[in-house]
Every structure is written in structure tokens, then in C-alpha cells.
């Protein structure tokens, strides 16, 4: 056996290289880079708080608790369709699920239970007869691909003002739901809520 071969064998037996030489080191480097990126994405701009918020909304949307309230009216919130989940560490750093009821699936709950929290969600928000659809992300809370309730105005300028008023209302609803999360998050109730969320994740 050549010295080079012996050296490789020794390194292989010590777990420094795989069967193909440098493979283990390369994999380890790639894993470290991925973990660093996942952690950085979690901490950047306190994205973790946004992920906690969207995960709380998901739990609230299925819990028996009273719906969100907006200016004295109940807001019904449903997660539907596409859902992106992200973790700050671990073997799985990102998951994308699709399907109308996918956000409430066992698979998603298992992922949430392992620290892979909601990062981007498609929401259906109903305020009385008005139904909005929108996609919200945990990092910037940008509201995208909005589907507004049907406009009733016919005149172009009136349509513009109605569209503006509806969009403004959606912005305020999203803000009020985020405020409610923060109200609970900073209160003494939060550990109890986390307990309920954990229980909900283990229900199925």
C-alpha cells in the first residue's frame, strides 16, 4: 500500500474523509455554510419574532379561542394553500408545502414541533362579508399577491378610492393581528400559550 493510500485509509478510519477522499470535509463545509445561513436568516431583523407571530396565528386560526377582533368586529383567519416553513438550525432548514388544507396537516405540525416555524403563509382573512386573500412573510411582513373583495364602484376614480380603502383596511387588519400577538407575547400568559401550542402540535 502506498504511503498516500495508507494516509487516506488512516484518515478514513478516523472519520476525516469518506470513501472518496475529501467528500466528508466538503459535506461538512456545505452543512456549516447552510447552518450559518439559516441562523443568520432567523436573527436578521428579528425574523424569529415574525415566525413566532405567524405560527401563533396558525394555532389561533384552528383553536377554539375567539377569533381576532378588528374595530369591534370578528376577523376569521384561515391559512390555505402554500406554506413555507424555516428553521434556524437542524437537518431540515426549509420546507414548502402545498395543498388547500396543507397548513393544518399532520406533516406541518410535526415540522412545527421540531422548530421549523412558519415563514411565509397564504391567508384568507374575512371581516364580515369582506374576504381578503394575501401572502405574508415573517421577515418584512410585506403583504403580497392580495386578492381584494369585489369592488362595487363603477367610476374609475371611485374604483381607485375603493381599492385604496380596501387595501388600507387589510393593512390595518394585518397590523392589528400582529399587535395582538405582541400583546400576548409580552404578557405572563405567553408560557401558557406556548404550552397550548405544544399540546395542539401533539394532538394528531
Amino acid at each position, binding site marked *: 500500500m502506498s504511503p498516500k493510500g495508507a494516509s487516506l485509509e488512516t484518515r478514513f478510519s478516523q472519520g476525516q474523509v469518506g470513501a472518496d477522499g475529501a467528500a466528508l470535509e466538503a459535506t461538512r463545509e456545505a452543512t456549516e455554510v447552510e447552518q450559518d445561513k439559516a441562523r443568520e436568516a432567523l436573527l436578521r431583523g428579528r425574523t424569529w419574532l415574525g415566525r413566532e407571530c405567524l405560527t401563533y396565528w396558525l394555532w389561533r386560526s384552528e383553536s377554539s379561542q375567539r377569533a381576532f377582533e378588528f374595530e369591534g368586529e370578528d376577523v376569521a383567519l384561515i391559512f390555505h394553500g402554500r406554506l413555507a416553513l424555516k428553521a434556524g438550525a437542524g437537518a431540515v432548514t426549509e420546507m414548502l408545502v402545498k395543498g388547500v388544507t396543507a397548513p393544518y396537516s399532520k406533516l406541518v405540525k410535526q415540522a412545527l414541533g421540531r*422548530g421549523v416555524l412558519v415563514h411565509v403563509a397564504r391567508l384568507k382573512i374575512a371581516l364580515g362579508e369582506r374576504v381578503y386573500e394575501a401572502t405574508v412573510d415573517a421577515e418584512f411582513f*410585506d403583504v403580497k399577491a392580495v386578492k381584494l373583495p369585489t369592488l362595487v364602484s363603477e367610476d374609475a376614480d371611485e374604483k381607485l378610492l375603493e381599492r385604496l380603502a380596501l387595501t388600507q383596511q387589510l393593512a390595518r387588519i394585518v397590523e392589528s393581528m400582529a399587535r395582538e400577538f405582541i400583546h400576548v407575547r409580552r404578557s405572563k400568559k405567553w408560557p401558557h400559550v406556548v404550552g397550548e401550542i405544544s399540546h395542539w402540535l401533539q394532538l394528531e
Partner: protein
Amino acid sequence: MPLRRGSVNFAQFVFESSPPKDLKRWVLTALKKGAFEPIDLKSDEERAAGFVELEFSERTDFSVGSVFYSEAALFSFRVDTLKVASAKIRRLLLEWKQTFENSNGRAAGRAETQTQKDQIKKMLRAQTPINTKTFDVSLHFGEKRVLIWATSRTIVEDLQVRLGQGLGVELRPRVPAAFLKSAELDALLPTPELFEVMP
């Protein structure tokens, strides 16, 4: 023009300081200060950005009637880009170098090459169409809220800075962290039970 039609996408901000009593003058001054100015074709500028009227992306007059709608100010942010493909410059320069060598019996000098490169660049800039994009902005006085109707974070962040500077206010994004005082926020840590990674 997403304010009038098309898919709605927005980033929302609020400003906490009180605006001056003369709201119209306040907004119009900010818009005029940051008004769009086209790219100077004689220069090397590759991007020009600034505010334009909502209905006419060529206009920067900002009359009261063109900006104020009910309780809001509506306008657009125009971004023009003019980028000449460097591969095209390189190809034309190479062709010129070969022609020069064939007709002069020697390779072109460094200064000659640079002069030719500048000429090619100038010629291509004149031929390349300018790419124009507009992004709408709505400023809602009652709620001190600004909606930037765009999906690109580069545009949102550029607008956040320009508009904030123009109006003399800090535009704060409406993320959950914005509802906490900085001391509370600093004391807050991720919930371990939620972020715990199980094997």
C-alpha cells in the same frame, strides 16, 4: 399602475412624528425635492430614480389636484435604467482591433483602444432603449401610514430612505418588533420551546 389595477403588493410603514399643519405643502415640497430627473445620455449614469405623478410618469409638476385624493397623497416612484451589455462592447472592440491591425500593420495602442472603447460605449448607449419602471406610493395622513406598492425589497428600501428624508420623518416598517419599545425588544429572546430542534 397597481393602485388602479393589477395585483396588489405592498410594504407598510408608519411615521410617529406629527406632520406640519400644511400637509399639502409638506408633501409637495418633498416630492419636488426628490422629483425624477432623466438619465443624462452624455454621462455614464446607469440609473435614475425619483418621484413622478401617479397618472403621468413623465410629469413632475405635482399640482394639488394630481397628488391628493380624499385623505391620501398618491404618487409614483420612477426608476429608469440604461445598461449597455459589456459583452457587446467587448465584441465590437475586438472587431475594431482586428480591422485596425489589418489596415495599419500594427496592434492598436492602449490609448487608441481606450478612445475607441469610449466611442463604442457612447454609440451603444444612444442605441440602447431605456428601461422604465414605476412603483406607486400612497400616504395616508390620518393614520400616518405609507404603503409602498412594490415587491422588490431594493425598491422598498430605496423609497423608505428617499421618502423619509424628503418628508423629514422616520418611516418605520410594521413588523411585530415595531410594536415593542426598544428596551423590551432587547430583553426579548426566541421562545426556546418553539425553536428547539429535536433529533
